[in-house]
């Protein structure tokens, strides 16, 4: 079984978000980059399939060479090899197109990508990739079992769970629940040493088509002071919510 895990290199969840060049560019100054959390849940699930079902796990990212430390971390966690498509992405469709090419050259049984990245939150790459390849697709995936040619996957829906069965190949949009936070693998020294020897292939992008572009960024207007209400004056809070905020 061959598994491809698509990785996005994103700012750490605690990062302060700032912009430069007249708010047209994300300010990476002092920002630590990590594996997109939704991708990491997926990667961990893939490593389990490697351990239990002897799957081969490849990780891929579309990005410039600043993404390589994140890819090395994926290798240290247990992926067998890595691919970097040398293109700084600006659009989800563009990423899906680049990934589709990799998947046409090598057939993967399961392709895992985070349901969305925590930086641009486009939530489109896995679904577009599935549509381009005409593969089965389950997003917001919180459980996955694969046996032979068949898979069962659970999708978190608004207010419940949907259990889906299908044949491989399958693309899933991973999220928390597929594995839990405590299941995430922290690379040990042996893993880190081995990662240095594992293959990381850099390939050139093909045709570069985009469907959207970001013109500029904006930060939210800072909030005014909080209005504190004494704990023994609940009536005042209800009055404020009713008459001032108009929410009850």
């Amino acid at each position, binding site marked *: 079984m061959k598994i491809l895990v698509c990785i996005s290199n994103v700012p750490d969840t605690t990062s302060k978000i700032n912009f430069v060049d007249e708010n047209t560019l994300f300010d990476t100054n002092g920002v630590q980059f990590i594996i997109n959390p939704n991708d990491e849940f997926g990667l961990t699930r893939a490593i389990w399939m490697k351990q239990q079902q002897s799957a081969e796990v490849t990780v891929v990212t579309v990005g410039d060479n600043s993404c390589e430390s994140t890819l090395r971390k994926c290798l240290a966690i247990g992926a067998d090899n890595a691919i970097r498509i040398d293109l700084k992405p600006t659009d989800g469709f563009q990423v899906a197109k680049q990934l589709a090419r990799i998947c046409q050259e090598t057939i993967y049984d399961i392709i895992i990508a985070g349901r969305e990245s925590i930086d641009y*939150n486009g939530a489109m790459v896995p679904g577009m990739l599935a549509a381009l390849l005409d593969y089965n697709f389950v997003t917001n995936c919180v459980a996955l079992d694969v046996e032979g040619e068949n898979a069962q996957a659970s999708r978190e829906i*608004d207010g419940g769970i949907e259990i889906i069965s299908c044949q491989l190949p399958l693309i899933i949009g991973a999220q928390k629940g597929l594995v839990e936070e405590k299941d995430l693998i922290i690379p040990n020294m042996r893993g880190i040493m081995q990662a240095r020897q594992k293959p990381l292939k850099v390939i050139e992008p093909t045709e570069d088509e985009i469907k959207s572009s970001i013109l500029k960024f904006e930060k939210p207007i800072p909030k005014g002071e909080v209005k504190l209400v004494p704990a023994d004056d609940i009536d005042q809070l209800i009055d404020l919510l009713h008459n001032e905020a108009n*929410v009850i």
Partner: protein
Amino acid sequence: MSVIIYAESENGKIKKSAFELASYGYEIASEMNVPLIAVTFNQDEVESLGTYGIEKVIKFKGPSISNFTALQYAENIALIAKENEAKIIILSSSANAKYLAPKLSITLSAGYASNVIALPEKLQPLTVKRTCFTNKAFNFCSLSNEVNIVGLSNNSYEIKENPKSIEIIEKDSSSTETTLKVEKLEKSSGKVTIADADVVVSGGRGLKGPENWHLIEDLADTLGGATACSKPVSDMGWRPHSEHVGQTGKPVASNLYIAIGVSGAIQHLAGVNSSKVKVVINNDPEAPFFKAADYGIVGDAFEVIPKLTKKLKEFKSK
């Protein structure tokens, strides 16, 4: 040419988000001087859509759409989009809408922007404001394609009445061959979901244990709202992770968000940024959440919540 909305329904009723899409779509369609069309699936009553500016409803029926499937629904919407030369297709931010949007985008070679929070800045080329960095920032995104898809964030556009007489067309759904089958749907009936809720009541570690969650549930029930929790609470297994709101959990865009015993980690604050009014109850006056709140009470959750629930019940019965 036309503007199309995918009007979602549940238990025989059109969802509130569909009326938001209709109101939003009406502004765009009027500006473009084209008709506004709604697509529904397995929904009998559609006349209410006319109140919000819809001129034509395409009702899909048939065995292949008895359950939602992204593939089949996307194919049907794409068909209507092609027949009516849609320029803009507007979807909600529900789990289902986000599931089918990428498929629809590829089928129609359309651009797609999710998490859009306002009317377009410009129609030529289509330029929309959307949230990014999990609500820590916004970006203006331009989509220069023949057809574009806008994913509108729930609760970001106010419902407006624009009564129209509607034409209703029934259509049988096509049936695409696929090995993908929905085996089972487990849904808690009658419960308000975080995605659809006007009010969300959220509990953190300050609640001390899952056995105290009836306090959160009672308060949420009183307000007709949904319950949610912080990341540590879901990590410790006190609550299901489907209730976890924050950067790696669910975003919340309710009118009112009440956080109790939640300190307000930056990731949690990001997830709830789109909520309009935030109330924080915490016994620690230094809790970072107070800086992001509109109203706050410094006090013991176990004393404040029952009092608040009781007073709200009295208020509601007035």
